[in-house]
C-alpha cells in the first residue's frame, strides 16, 4: 500500500557504457513510465468513500493509501482511467495533461 521508491532515470552517455544487448539495467525504480500519460486522474477527496476499489483495480499499482485516502503516484500512472471508471462514488475525474 505504500508508495514506490523512485530513483534517477538511467541515461547512458556514450556507446562504451552500453551492454552489447538491450537489457534492463535497473528495476522500475529507475523507469519512470508516468511520462506516457495524456490524461491524469484527480481524486475529489470530499466525495471519496475510502472503499479502496481504485487502489485494488489500478493495473500498474500506481495508487497508494495515505492517511486512509487513496493517492495517485504520478511517476508511474499512465492515465488509463480504470480507477475513474470503477469508482462507485464517481469522485475521480480524468483531466487532460497540460504539456
Amino acid at each position, binding site marked *: 500500500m505504500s508508495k514506490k521508491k523512485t530513483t534517477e532515470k538511467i541515461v547512458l552517455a556514450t556507446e562504451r557504457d*552500453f551492454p*552489447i544487448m538491450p*537489457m534492463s539495467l535497473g528495476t522500475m525504480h529507475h523507469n519512470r513510465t508516468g511520462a506516457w500519460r495524456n490524461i491524469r486522474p484527480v481524486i475529489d477527496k470530499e466525495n471519496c468513500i475510502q472503499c479502496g476499489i481504485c487502489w485494488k483495480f489500478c493495473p500498474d499499482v500506481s495508487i497508494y493509501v495515505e492517511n486512509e485516502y487513496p493517492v495517485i503516484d504520478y511517476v508511474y500512472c499512465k492515465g488509463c482511467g480504470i480507477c475513474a471508471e470503477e469508482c462507485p462514488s464517481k469522485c475521480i475525474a480524468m483531466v487532460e495533461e497540460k504539456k
Partner: protein
Amino acid sequence: MKKVMMGNHALSWGAQLGRAQVIAAYPITPQTQVVELLSEMCADKSLDAKFIKVESEHSAMAACIGASLAGARTFTATSAHGLALMHELLHWAAIGRLPVVMGNINRAMAPGWSIWSDQNDSLSQRDTGWMQYYCASNQEVLDTTIQAFKVSEALAVPGMIMLDAFTLSHTYEVVDIPEQDKVDSFLPPFQAKLRLSSDDPRAFGGLTSPEHYFELRYKQQKDMEKAPALVAETGKEYEKLFGRRLELIEAYRNEDAELLFVTSGTTGYTARVAVDALRKEGVKAGNLRIRLFRPFPFAELRKLVGRSGRRVAVVDRNLSFGHHGIFFQEVKSALYGHADGTAVFGYVSGLGGRDISLEHFKEIAADALKRRPPAEEIVWIGVRK
C-alpha cells in the same frame, strides 16, 4: 580418424566435436541428415546435448535464442523455406548478440518447388547480422563449424555455414575427423557475455527508445568489423593444431592471372578445374573463391585483385531481381576506388540447381576477355533464350 561421409554429416560431426549443448531443429530437404545424425548422437549419448524437437523453423530459432541466452552452445540447421521462416528470429539472434551457429543448405526458393541448389535463400538473409561462410568441401564444412563456434562466441555474433544442395550436402568425401581432446583445447566451453541467471535477474530485449537503440547497432557493427581478422587468426591457430588452413578467400593460381574468376561454394572448385584447362589453352586464368561473405573481406579481396588492370568475372548462383548477381554487386562495391583499370563483369548461372560446368566457365572466359567495360548488364550463362 578418417571417414567417408556426406556434407550434411560433416556439419553434424562439427557440432558434435564442438560440443554443442542444445540443438533445436526442424527437418527439411536437403538438410534432414544433419539433424537426423545429431538426434542419433544425442540418443546414444555420444553427444551430451539437449535435442529440442519443434513444430517449425521459427520455433527452432526461438529455442536456440533462449538456449544461447541461458549460456548454452547452440546449433541448428535448415534450408531455403525453413531459413525464410526463421527470418524474424535471425534478426533477433544477431541483434541479441547470441552466438548461435547454424548450417544452411543452399536450396532454390519456390515456386516452382525446387530442392536443388542456388544461393538466394541465404543471400536474402544477408542483412540480418549473421556471419556467412560458403563451403566447397566436406572437410571444410567440418573445420568451419568448429571454427565458427569460436569466432561467433568471441564476437557475440551468430554464424551461418552454407553448403550447396546435393553437390555438397549429399556428396560423399573423405573427411579427417580431429581428435576430441585437441578440439577441446582449441574450443573451450562457451562463456556467455550476458546470460539469463537467477543470481542477477535481467530482462533482455525490451523496449529500447531512440535514445539508446542507435548505439547498440553501432557496437554491433564495430564487433562485426573485427570478424575478418579474427577468422584469419582463428584459421591459423586451427592450422597449427590440425594442419589445415582456411582463408577468407581461397586464391588459386592468382598471382599472374589476367582473367580472374570470383566464385563461391562448390562452383569455386569447378572454377579451379576450368583455370587449369584454360591455362592449357594459353589463357592465364585464376580463381578467387570467397569463403567469408559476411562480414565482407574487403581488404583481402583488394589485396588479391590488386591494381593490375585485370579482367574479373564474378559468377553468381543467385540474383537480386532488378539488380545483378549479389556477389557481383559486392565485389564491384569493394573494389570501387581501389582497382582502377580493373574490369569487373557479372555472370548469372546455375539457378535452381542447373549445373555450372567446365564448358560454362570457358564461355564466361571467352566473354570476359572480349567484353568492353563497364558492365551494366547481366551476362546469362546456360539459360535457353
